[in-house]
């Protein structure tokens, strides 16, 4: 573990801390419809959108209406993406002439569920499957909209805490429009230009064919990469333009672009904690969230960095230098890019799974067992460590509700959070969402570890589902567990080592992505509706303080304990035993 490595990690953290307040207040202003410095330019555009779509932004919705709007919007956009993929052969911007043949129905379903839920799991190799039109008009557009929807939901939940005795939680269409127009679009534009400056490509050229020095022929994929790359990180989407994702030099060419991309992942989720504090009129509450998230992030990155830098006993036994030196990075460099090295790869892996991003700049499958446990466990915690755009905040608020409920009783009052009594309905909904997540991950991973297929089965090639694995033993199990964890958690990163492009995996992972997104969101919006309707209990000395270090420790503890208790048996048969073997 080098001082340069520590410096990179510290520098990254400073960037996130510094941007939380300015961006957080900007988001709060935008979302509450106040004037900002962008209003003169984007205001007319916003009003035009409302006019064209017949939206009255002042028309508030109850939680049921808000949810219905969200579901209708997601369903419609997913169906559109499905059609776009299947029909790509008839549509323009397709220099490589990809047709419906490269996108099977199950794959198209998986991909549209994946991008519609902000997961961006990719069962396919983009550069040999999809036309530029699908990448731009399908995937990139979804990158914006699914992130904006996540942000809208988080804001709706925060409104539940901020309001009292009101039946409505905002207008979904207005929240969606404002998030896209004022927050995601301008920032993506700037980010894309910056990425171009680092060497990320942006063109519509056919693929380049070159002859290498050895005289071999090589096809180099091209495309409108920068425009997708920016929002891929900013919207915590993570779906790569290329199969190699952020390890590809055209997506992430330099250490600076790497730092910038990681910064983009945490930028909005970090700022949203401040938005939350500002909207509930107590910024300390927001900073408490920020602190709890930071602690969990730090624990993850230190663990991953430690185990990656120290390699494994097997590496050491085989005479590989695990010590970092002036000329050698040491440690476990398998599956990592030399231009990023160990610290920035471990940091990237932690950040991308803390958030529900799923972009990767190294192969998680090649991490040491405990190094690879970090991204896996991060997702299993529910991606509440800053988390996805909006998703991280609403997930963490759900844990806050649980933490307050479990321990809040110990101050001798019925639990309350931010002046709202946590009662039957809130607990029921929070438990429901936890339960759905655990069920999706465990049941499908369980099925895939034992299910066999007949000859001629539609679902999978004959033999056990585990035949799709490239690694035997506990590592193979980790690969299956990771796939369903990533899908359910709407992360989208792949451990690798598993061929998921068969109907069995495409359809089951597609389903868990939809469940993981919407069965989390619906209960949470119900909570938002119930909270908004409640009176606010004034703070007194008898109130459980939710802004101090004690609450931060409690919240962190509950997140870890709930995650560990649910997944310990599974993890012990995967990464833990692999480490001990």
């Amino acid at each position, binding site marked *: 573990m080098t001082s340069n490595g520590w410096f990179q990690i510290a520098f990254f953290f400073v960037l996130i801390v510094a941007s939380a307040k300015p961006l957080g207040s900007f988001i709060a202003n935008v979302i509450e419809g106040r004037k900002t410095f962008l209003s003169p330019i984007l205001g007319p555009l916003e009003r035009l959108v409302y006019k064209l779509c017949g939206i009255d932004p002042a028309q508030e919705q109850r939680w049921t209406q808000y949810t219905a709007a969200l579901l209708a919007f997601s369903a419609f956009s997913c169906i559109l993406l499905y059609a776009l993929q299947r029909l790509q052969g008839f549509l323009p911007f397709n220099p490589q002439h990809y047709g419906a043949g490269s996108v099977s129905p199950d794959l198209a379903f998986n991909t549209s569920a994946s991008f519609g839920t902000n997961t961006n799991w990719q069962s396919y190799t983009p550069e040999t499957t999809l036309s530029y039109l699908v990448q731009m008009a399908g995937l990139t557009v979804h990158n914006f909209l699914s992130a904006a929807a996540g942000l809208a939901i988080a804001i709706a939940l925060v409104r539940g805490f901020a309001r009292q005795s009101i039946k409505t939680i905002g207008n979904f269409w207005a929240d969606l429009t404002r998030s896209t127009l004022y927050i995601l679009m301008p920032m993506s534009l700037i980010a894309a230009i910056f990425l171009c400056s680092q060497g990320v490509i942006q063109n519509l050229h056919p693929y380049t064919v070159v002859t290498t020095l050895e005289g071999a022929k090589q096809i180099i994929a091209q495309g409108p990469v920068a425009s997708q790359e920016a929002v891929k990180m900013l919207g915590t989407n993570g779906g790569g333009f290329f199969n190699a994702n952020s390890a590809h030099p055209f997506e992430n060419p330099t250490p600076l672009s790497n730092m910038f991309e990681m910064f983009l992942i945490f930028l909005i989720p970090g700022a949203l904690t401040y938005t939350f504090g500002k909207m509930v009129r107590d910024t300390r509450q927001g900073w408490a969230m920020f602190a709890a998230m930071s602690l969990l992030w730090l624990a993850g990155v230190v663990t991953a960095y430690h185990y990656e830098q120290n390699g494994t006993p097997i590496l050491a036994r085989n005479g590989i230098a695990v010590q970092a030196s002036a000329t050698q990075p040491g440690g476990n460099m398998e599956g990592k890019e030399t231009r990023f090295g160990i610290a920035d790869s471990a940091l990237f892996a932690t950040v991308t799974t803390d958030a529900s991003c799923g972009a990767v700049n190294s192969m998680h499958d090649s991490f040491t067992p405990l190094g690879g446990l970090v991204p896996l466990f991060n997702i299993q915690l529910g991606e509440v460590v800053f988390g996805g755009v909006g998703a991280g905040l609403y997930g963490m608020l759900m844990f806050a509700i649980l933490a307050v409920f*479990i321990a809040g009783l110990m101050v001798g009052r019925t639990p309350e959070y931010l002046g709202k009594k946590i009662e039957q309905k809130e607990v029921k909904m929070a*438990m429901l969402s936890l339960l759905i997540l655990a069920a999706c991950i465990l049941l499908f991973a369980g099925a895939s570890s034992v299910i066999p297929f007949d000859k001629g089965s539609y679902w999978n090639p004959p033999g056990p589902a*585990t035949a799709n694995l490239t690694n035997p033993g506990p590592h193979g*199990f980790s690969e299956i567990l990771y796939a369903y964890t990533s899908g359910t958690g709407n992360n989208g990163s792949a451990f690798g080592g598993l061929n998921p492009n068969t109907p069995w995996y495409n359809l089951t992972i597609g389903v868990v992505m939809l469940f993981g997104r919407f069965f989390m969101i619906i209960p949470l919006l119900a909570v938002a509706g119930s909270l908004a309707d409640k009176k606010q*209990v004034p703070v007194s000395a008898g109130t459980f303080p939710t802004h101090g270090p004690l609450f931060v420790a409690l919240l962190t503890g509950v997140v870890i304990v709930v995650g560990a208790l649910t997944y*310990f048996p599974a993890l012990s048969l995967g990464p833990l035993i692999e480490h001990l073997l």
Partner: protein
Amino acid sequence: MQQVADALKRGKRARPLFDPPIVRRALIDSFAKLNPRTLAKNPVMFVVEVGAALTTVLLFQSIAAHRPGWGFDFQITLWLWFTVLFANFAEAMAEGRGKAQADSLRKAKTETFAKKLVNGKIEIVPASSLRKGDICLCEPNDLIPGDGEVIDGIASVDESVITGESAPVIRESGGDRSAVTGGTKVLSDWIKIQITSNPGETFLDRMIALVEGAQRQKTPNEIALNIMIAGLTLIFLLACVTLAPFAQYAVVSAGAGKVPGLVVLVALLVCLIPTTIGGLLSAIGIAGMDRVMQHNVLAMSGKAVEAAGDVNTLLLDKTGTITLGNRQAVAFLPAEGVTAEELADAAQFSSLADETPEGRSIVVLAKEKYGLRGREISALEAEFIPFSAQTRMSGVNMHGRAIRKGATESIKRYVLQSGGVFSQAVSEISDRISRDGGTPLAVAENGRALGVIHLKDVVKGGMRQRFDQMRTMGIRTVMITGDNPLTAAAIAREAGVDDFLAQATPRDKLDLIRREQASGRLVAMTGDGTNDAPALAQADVGVAMNTGTMAAKEAGNMVDLDSNPTKLIEVVAIGKQLLITRGALTTFSIANDVAKYFAIIPAMFTITYPPLAKLNIMRLHSPESAILAAVIFNALIIIALVPLALRGVKYRPLSAGALLRRNLLVYGLGGIIAPFPGIWVVDRVLGILHLA
């Protein structure tokens, strides 16, 4: 004195935690409660019972097939049943204490006869035939046949059957001491009562039903907690069920060991689900009600006790709660040219025949301060002038001395009328006393103003500390008084309450409660009069005094049988204690799981993946013993925590932050650590006994 009496009574009422008859009955009830229909109301324990039933079936299969190792299955099965029984026992114990109380109350309900008045004639009828509106006569040694209002007469009544207080109380018509309770006994004199409730609906009936728990409904917080632990149970069910395919994958890929059997998976499940809180939850609730009962407060619902813990604002009547019932003389302030002794002497003479508490306190003060002994009234040949509304004075005429005492204005008028001089100093002293919240009482002799007696409301000892405690608990205290704002402010300052409502009418009280509630606060109050009824009904916690009117008792959600308004403070503490106990045991229960994983998971896969033994950090000596030790520990912890559940976690009046820090450390961190040595010890014992 009051405190001593309270303490005595509490000592008498409090039963030992494990009263042998109660324990015996609870043991029997624990088996009766195995009925799945009863148990289904408790999702966690129901899962344990289903698991135990499942392992029982598997056990018989093993025995029938002569499979080796059924001894292990037998022990697991046995301990799973124990787990259910222990939880049942906890609940039965909590209920048993209530039942024992109900039994003693029922004895008061023996069939009695009533002297019913029909057209002025007495008819002897069975008490059970009385209906609302009937009028009865009760004479010495009669049991009062039903709940009623005294409409005529006055009597001393022994209410010990209800209150446990042996000193008789006075019941008379009119005012706030007119309610009588069926089953109590007239000791002297007579009263005529009008029956106010039909048979089966009397206060005693309701009380029996309440303490027996017949009307016990789950409280909102209990339901929410049940949902959470049921959710956790489902999550752990998923974790255990999916462990089977995960294990199969592991066994196939390692080519060693075997998939853990159903018995082991059930054992793991039972260890993980929150059985500690699941088993004790209803006992905690019942015991909370019971604790309120032991303080001689009758809570109409568990919800009311729970709400007491949440109270933000406490409305306390000044008289009787904050101050001793009456004003007392605290100083003699003479006018110029008069000595304090002269004033005291005159004041004492004027008060000798004054039987009011104020009058008596003047005699006592003169005696204590100036050694003036109370003189024999008859020896003085004195003529006493009683207080009249016209003169607003009282006094004495003797041996040429005419002494008068009264409100300063009245005395001034009296002095000036009789041609005397009313010194400016007396007016000034009076004003000063009024400003400080006291009551001035001027004294004049033979047309000369001697000075002023300072009467003062005396704040009960220790009240200030209690209010300070309330403040640290985040509870605002508001004093309610009929006094003028000046007096009220002074007393409020002295007692240390946060706020006061002066010249309060019942309407003002109701408005204050509504105002507090509108800003999200929960309000508790005490009251006794019929005019308190609307406010009692509006308050979140309304404690009616037992001496109060029936209307007040109907309106409140608690009745204090001792009629001690200070008790509200204890009720709040009990409510908080109830919630803390629930939170503490929930946290403890979940925290316990960490150690259980470390015991069971390595034991399950030790053959498939031998290196997993490194996770066996407790060094448990065999896989069987590890699993068994975890199950046994899990069962024993329930029984070990029964006293805590029944008694409640000790409540300390601290701020929320300090309380949380303490309890998190004890029950959270303690809950993580405690099972490690616990399971280790059980494992050793099993080894020594060669049980595993």
